[in-house]
């Protein structure tokens, strides 16, 4: 079957199998920032935005995406320059495998804070990002960077 999606601002038509997951389709189409880290929708490395909200691409059938807008790390990186700088300054990117998914999540969080949907404090930020696992950093370096980027005191 065919689906039409707006991916990182550009409409594209993709030939997919009805049983394809969005993660596999995205990787096949070259959006390789989207990673597979587990088989249970637990690790957060496959996080993308669907119509502006974070979603686990490993758990969404691509067929349901017809007519929707998808954003991956590739699509927001230029806007997230300050975030990337903050994370790199802490050395908290480490192996990097969780980094693109986390960046997508931080991008969404920033918008939620701006819209008043999420409180701007440490606890709320940690809770929002809890689904993005990291095994290298112990999270603290990431958080130093994220708090700085979001202006959380």
């Amino acid at each position, binding site marked *: 079957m065919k689906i039409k999606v707006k991916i990182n601002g550009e409409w594209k038509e993709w030939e997919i199998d009805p049983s394809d997951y969005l993660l596999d389709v995205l990787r096949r189409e070259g959006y*390789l*920032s*989207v*990673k*597979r*880290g*587990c*088989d*249970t929708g*637990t*690790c957060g*490395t496959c996080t993308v935005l669907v119509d502006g909200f974070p979603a686990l691409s490993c758990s969404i059938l691509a067929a349901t995406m017809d007519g929707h807008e998808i954003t*991956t*790390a*590739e699509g927001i*990186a230029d806007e*997230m320059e300050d975030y*990337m700088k903050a*994370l*790199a*300054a*802490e*050395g*908290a*990117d*480490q*192996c*990097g*495998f*969780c*980094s*693109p998914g986390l*960046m997508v999540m931080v991008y969404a969080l920033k918008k939620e804070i701006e819209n008043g949907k999420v409180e701007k404090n440490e606890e709320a930020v*940690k*809770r929002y*990002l*809890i689904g*993005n*696992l*990291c*095994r*290298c*950093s*112990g*999270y*603290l*370096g*990431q*958080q130093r960077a994220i708090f700085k980027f979001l202006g959380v005191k």
Partner: protein
Amino acid sequence: MREVKKSVPKKDAYGLIRGKPVYTDDIAPKDALVVKVLRSPHAFARIKDIDVSEALAMDGVEIVLTYKDVPRKPITRAGQGYPEPSPYDKFILDEYVRYVGDEVAAVAAEDERTAEEALKKIKVEYEILEPVLDFEKAEENPSVIHPEDDIFPQFDIGFDPKRNIAASYEMEIGDVDKILEECEKDPDCVVLKERFYTQAQAHVMLEPHASFAYVDMHGRLVIVSSTQTPFHVRRQISMVLGIPIKNIRVIKPRIGGGFGGKQALHGEMIVALVAWRTKKPAKLVYTRKEVFESTYTRHPSRFDVTLAATKDGKLKAIAYDVLWDTGAYGEHALTTLMVAGSKTLPMYNKVEGVRFRGKVVYTNHTPAGAYRGYGAIQANFALESAMDMLAEKLGMDPIELRLKNIIREGETSPIFKIMGEGREGAEMIIKSCKLEEAIKRGAEVIDWKNKFGKKEKNGNKVRGVGMAIAMQGSGIANIDMGSAIIKLNDDGSFNLLVGATDLGTGSDTILAQIAAEVLGVSTDDIIVYSSDTDLTPFDTGAYASSTTYVSGNAVKRAAEKMRKLIIEEGAKKLGLSPEEVEFDGKVIRAKDGSKEVTLKELATVRYYTEDQKQLVADGSFVGPESPPPYAATFVEVEVDTQTGKVDVLKYVSILDIGTPINPNLARIQAEGGAVQGIGMALYEDVKYSSSGRLLTNNLMYYKIPSRLDVPEMHIEFLESYEPTGPFGAKSVAEIGIDTPPAAIANAVYDALGVRIKDLPITPEKVFFAMKK
């Protein structure tokens, strides 16, 4: 120092964060055959019959491999220096399957779905054998896990497979039995005997193991793998497939974490064989379930500790009796066992007697392998828990007991020489050790004086504090080898080629900082290329906390040679002798200020116009010793007396790692290690069903710390300088993980008077222990 002791961002940071396609699966050829592995549903069985004809007949299936189709050549998958101290007890595929998840057959097909369908069409008839699932019953078990006669060790490692023993080791200094006997009779002495257990732990690096292989235009086999040890992979694949080393190239691209879990062959043997046979590119990416079930765990242990001390707190003897569970294969078996001794016993170097007796047994569980801490964390939990129990028996503050007995600068321990990793070790006088300062500083930060023994209550919650100390090493003395090549480019920048393997730690950056410091240039002017067996010089790989110390020293040597070359060539250009000029990183000038040439000008003429030649230098390093980093860790916990749940409120770790080449990256190593250690201490637990099936085979059942589980953390590096290390550096990769289990167990005891001696310290265990 300009470029070291500086927190420059990792060289690969921006590429990684924005999600550039740099990991194995990202760069695998799009037309690569997809390899899938049929895995054993039984803990122990013999394949009576295997029929692959239906699978092979499927459209899109390229090749199916069973034990009948592969060379029968025993090997160890452990990525270790050669000859390896691990038994050669593994085959690419075998007639026997020895754990749930062991390889039965492999299929390569044009896409993933076809490969998965084909797996279902393979018909296997198993003779189900009685598995050994309790490691305490393995030794004299009638079931022999490795009955085959063609397996062997490279040298004597105490290998006795007919009794399910993969390796064993004993050593004794002094007459421990006699000391214990005398101590028991002496009213001024106490003896403490305690038994501890530690569990298996899963690495959970976020990138699952992945590799692909192809045959290049020259007919050579190229393997790209998320490995910690590319040069070992090349040697191992050569050995097992009978392809000369010269015809194999192994490349490690960016990899998504390792922690020891990728210090071994995992998919490489199969993927290489598929590519070699079919002459088509092939890839094998593990599922998370396969990572859990079919790669590695930490070795579970039973640890008997005996301590003898005088009433005034002088330790007289330490004895360990250790039983170690290596699972189905003996990878890293002897070496992790020996590290349990060699990286804990020297901390208390003033004893009269030390004894270590250990056996590593086979069971029908997922193989154990290398995992950050590598035996030291198991021993640290036992020893540092026992030290607190001894302190209580003596009526002494645990800090005081440690201060009376710890190793200090200028001292040594006979253990360094006796116990290496699988072999004899190396003598060493400790040249940098701030352990005493670390203990004192940690006590101050946690406010030990006002908190220890106070059992501060708040409703149902009770608080307590606990501490533990640790040491590790910096590479394996006389075995781990690193090397580097530096070449000057025509714009005055440098290429640094290293075999060292960056797992995400930032070692590429740290090595560039070391080179930049020597050359007096900016780290930005050092372009690093690493871990490619064709293009980079030899390195044993990233393990044993070796890269900064071993590979770092190699880089330093290469950079010093390059510096000398630049001075010589610059002097020649100026018509002076090398003694008459100086080089500041940018300009080579006469000491009298009469003339100068910039590095860029010199480089340009050397490549295009005058006395043309490539300026290139190399350096190699093998550590004649392995200087230990140290840590003193203090925790404050709060235990809910209604549920037994333990929360770590505050975590203080004071470390002596020598010079932190990149303080931010060192901090992340310490923090990340601590959080993995806290996970092991409190909830991470590899669990099996009664038939040997792994129950914790996904991230919903196997719980790693989330960001809400991380306590307030105070990490501090003491001013320390290791004279044998590059710019005073030792290591930081493993030291952070060792202390949490014992420190937390000791804090729980301080809070409740309840001693948990088997990890993890779950609410159930605490709750039921409280009720006793």
